[in-house]
């Protein structure tokens, strides 16, 4: 364990762990904590419909005001944020996981396997995702956040697959892979020890992109009313605010907070991705 | 290789300083470099990597890119200081009066353009009025001068061999008959036979144009066979400069002497010795002679005081504290064992 902290300290001093990375991670951590610890400070009952007095602006008992259905916005936000994050993360992991595996297989084995994977991913890339997702989501009877995440992931793996495949093809030709062979490393060892670490920047970048894109897709679908409407999510909140013409009526405390949280999530993801590149590629580290 | 030493120099570099801004302070890549070149003269600048030679090549035409910047000095081409010109004026001077064959010139060719288009591009940028027929003639003329067949004009770079690409780069560089050609390691990736052919072509071209050549490299043999004058660069400074014969047969600076002595030949097997140690970092260079940690003749003054370039023999100048008290370098001490290096 001591080695871990010593390595961490050395990495920081060498500039591999940059302020950008730390700020990005801090933002994400803050948002996660917001959703994780927040419930300890509020009563979930207040987020239910009709729990409190409706249409109250921020102030007094209600930190962020209430919506026209009698829900406390602050409590709602605390419960909605982790749900949205969850969907983004599930879609991100599934999308990147499936994409990375397919990309690795296509790049490593080539031939007809590569051909099939490429044809499928290339065709799906040209498809207008929102249109398909609307059709799929509209046809599902029992929507839940988990199912929503899977729906979005179904069209979120292609970019990762293509990126990973291209990188595997490049890395396989590198001289250091040959050196690994003469050093006695077996093919699986080469895949995990030599190829994968150099794939990490691309996978992390894909992950960030996939999570961001998934959250956007999820919010888009929810804003259209295709989400799991009983659940508390940021997108659903936007939907309900639209249904009640919150913008026209000036209830800014209903539609603005979810947007602010969404923006912070994206900023955190972006900074983390940029900062991670410095870690994975030591040549970029500067002190 | 005929140089008329009585002629006025065509290129005069005075006290040129180029720094790279690093996080830890400026790296003095080129420090107070001065030399003069006459028309038709071939100057070979030799140095290891990190000696500043490529930085100097680009600085001559103010092509230095950030974080590098030209701090002070002058580069006078035919009386005009290139460093003082406006961007527009300098663009006209480049290629027309002074041309660069950059390191890896082969990969500086645009891979998606045919050769003739690239050559025409270069010419038209300076002479916009030329008609297509005139341009085609000129392209053929240039190809013939560098020994390439006429049909090469229609080819793409990837269809040419390394030597052919280098000659194409030479054709582009000489397309406007410049007065000075700066060739930065023009033969680094080529094998011995092609290297000789390319260098002989360059020599012929240069004689035809009456141009001067600055050849930058690290191969003393190549420079000896091609150049009239040799300048040795170390840690951004010229530490010795003089006629090639004198530099090879009686080098005055210890670094030059070590370089020459370490060159193997093909007559006799000898012990292969390099120069132990590494060149100094160019940031926060300590005072004194930059070569002193590796110099077998170093003494107390060398650590304190930076030596200036001074005349030590006819036409030969060296920056070393052994002169003018001594007139020759003592023989190298025998080296026992191998020292550990970083």
């Amino acid at each position, binding site marked *: 364990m001591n080695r871990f902290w010593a390595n961490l300290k050395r990495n920081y001093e060498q500039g591999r762990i940059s302020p950008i990375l730390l700020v990005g991670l801090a933002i994400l951590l803050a948002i996660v904590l917001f959703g994780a610890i927040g419930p300890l400070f509020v009563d979930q009952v207040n987020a239910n419909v009709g729990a409190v007095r409706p249409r109250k602006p921020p102030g007094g008992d209600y930190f962020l005001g209430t919506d026209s259905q009698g829900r406390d916005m602050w409590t709602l936000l605390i419960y909605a944020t982790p749900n949205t994050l969850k969907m983004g993360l599930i879609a991100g992991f599934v999308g990147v996981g499936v994409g990375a595996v397919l990309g690795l297989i296509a790049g490593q084995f080539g031939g007809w396997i590569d051909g099939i994977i490429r044809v499928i991913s290339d065709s799906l890339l040209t498809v207008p995702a929102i249109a398909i997702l609307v059709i799929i989501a509209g046809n599902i009877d029992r929507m839940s956040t988990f199912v929503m995440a899977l729906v979005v992931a179904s069209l979120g793996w292609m970019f990762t697959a293509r990126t990973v495949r291209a990188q595997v093809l490049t890395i396989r030709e590198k001289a250091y892979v040959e*050196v690994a062979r003469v050093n006695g490393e077996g093919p699986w060892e080469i895949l995990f020890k030599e190829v994968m670490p150099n794939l990490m920047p691309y996978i992390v970048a894909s992950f960030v992109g996939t999570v961001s894109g998934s959250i956007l897709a999820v919010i888009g679908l929810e804003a259209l009313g295709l989400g799991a409407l009983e659940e508390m999510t940021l997108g659903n909140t936007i939907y309900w605010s639209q249904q009640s013409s919150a913008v026209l009526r000036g209830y800014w405390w209903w539609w603005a907070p979810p947007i602010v949280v969404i923006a912070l999530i994206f900023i955190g993801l972006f900074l983390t991705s940029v900062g991670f590149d410095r870690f994975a590629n*030591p040549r970029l580290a500067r002190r | 290789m005929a140089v008329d030493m009585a002629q006025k120099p065509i290129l005069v570099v005075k006290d040129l300083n180029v720094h790279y801004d690093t996080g830890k302070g400026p790296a003095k890549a080129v420090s107070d470099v001065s030399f003069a070149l006459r028309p038709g003269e071939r100057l070979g600048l030799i140095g290891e990597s990190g000696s500043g030679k490529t930085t100097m090549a680009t600085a001559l035409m103010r092509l230095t890119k950030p974080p590098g910047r030209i701090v002070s000095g002058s580069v006078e081409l035919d009386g005009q200081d290139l460093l003082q010109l406006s961007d527009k004026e300098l663009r006209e001077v480049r290629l027309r009066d002074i041309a660069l064959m950059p390191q890896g010139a082969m990969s500086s060719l645009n891979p998606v353009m045919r050769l003739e288009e690239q050559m025409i591009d270069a010419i038209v940028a300076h002479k916009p009025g030329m008609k297509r027929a005139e341009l085609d003639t000129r392209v053929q003329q240039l190809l013939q001068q560098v020994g390439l067949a006429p049909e090469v004009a229609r080819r793409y770079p990837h269809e040419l061999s390394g030597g052919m690409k280098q000659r194409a780069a030479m054709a582009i560089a000489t397309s406007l008959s410049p007065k000075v050609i700066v060739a930065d390691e023009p033969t680094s990736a080529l094998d011995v036979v092609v290297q000789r052919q390319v260098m002989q072509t360059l020599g012929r071209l240069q004689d035809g144009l009456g141009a001067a050549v600055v050849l930058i490299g690290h191969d003393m*043999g190549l420079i000896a066979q091609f150049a009239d004058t040799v300048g040795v660069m170390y840690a951004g400074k010229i530490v010795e400069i003089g006629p090639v*014969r004198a530099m090879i047969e009686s080098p005055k600076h210890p670094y030059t002497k070590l370089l020459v002595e370490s060159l193997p030949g093909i007559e006799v097997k000898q012990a*292969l010795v390099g120069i132990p140690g590494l060149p100094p970092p160019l940031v926060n260079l300590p005072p004194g002679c930059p070569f002193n940690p590796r110099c077998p003749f170093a003494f107390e003054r060398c650590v304190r005081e930076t030596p200036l370039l001074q005349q030590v023999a006819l036409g030969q100048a060296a920056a070393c504290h052994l002169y003018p008290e001594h007139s020759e370098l003592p023989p190298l001490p025998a080296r026992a064992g191998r020292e550990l290096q970083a």
Partner: protein
Amino acid sequence: MSALIEARGVTKRYGSFTALDDVTLTLSDSAPSMTAIAGESGSGKTTLARMMLGFIDPSDGVVEYRGKNIATMTPAEKQAFRREVQPVFQDPFEVFNPFYRVDHVLTTPVKRFGLADTEAKAQALIEDALKRVGLRPQDTLGRFPHELSGGQRQRVMVARAVLLRPKLIVADEPVSMVDASLRATILDELRTLNQELGISIVYITHDLTTAFQICDNIVVLYRGTVAEAGAVEQVIGAPKHPYSQLLVSSIPLPDLSKAWGGEEIPVTEANAARPNDGCKFAPRCPHVMEMCWQNPPPKYMPDAQRLATCFLYRDAPVSPDADVASVFRPPLAAPVS
């Protein structure tokens, strides 16, 4: 003489392009030798090196290590082969995985080949290897590849090869991308490894000067065939094949009394288009005769320790052995001071 590594009638084709054409070369087990394989790009020297390292298989012919065909080795045999035959590659940067510190290329073989049973022993082994190539362990270990110079990186690669105490090191242009003043040092280290540790070295290069300095024998390849082979004093000192003569005379020597220049005829269109069943060098050869276009010349032996595949020497005896190494001279007994 038992064979350490043997390439017999090896041919390698890539589609219609023949990279190597019927080359036979044997390196003996008896005395550790230093052999140069020289040629320009396209000569097939790198192809031959990669075959010796077991990276590619021949289209025809066979490459055997200690009598076993490398192409059909079992994984266990391949592992033992890898232990004994190690490369040093040309590019000192690409050979390092940028994700790891340079220690990675040194600790991996120690682990994979079981060279040490405790961490302390492994560390000692690595430090010893680094010191052997003139590097200070405390300045090298823990660094990333981009923090070291090209020369230092190349020395780490040599140290890596030495760790395993191989029988043979195949060095493919090990110093062509290294600074001139460091080349001598690194090559001298290779020579020391040969003399002190008994490691045979195959030195692939286009630089005949260094080949002359450190090697005993040399094979000059031209477009996949052997043009000339034998003792370096003969082949480089007094080349007989017109191609070797062209190569040697093109070397820029710092000796001003020897101007460089080579006898070569430019390839005319007629020559380039002419169908050639004979000597591959015919279109460029200043001494070409009609018979050169008809049949490929056999391996003549104009001297005891040299063979030249050229009809100029048709009065000399033909080499009885297809193996070009049969004309090699043994390594010099005394180390060069």
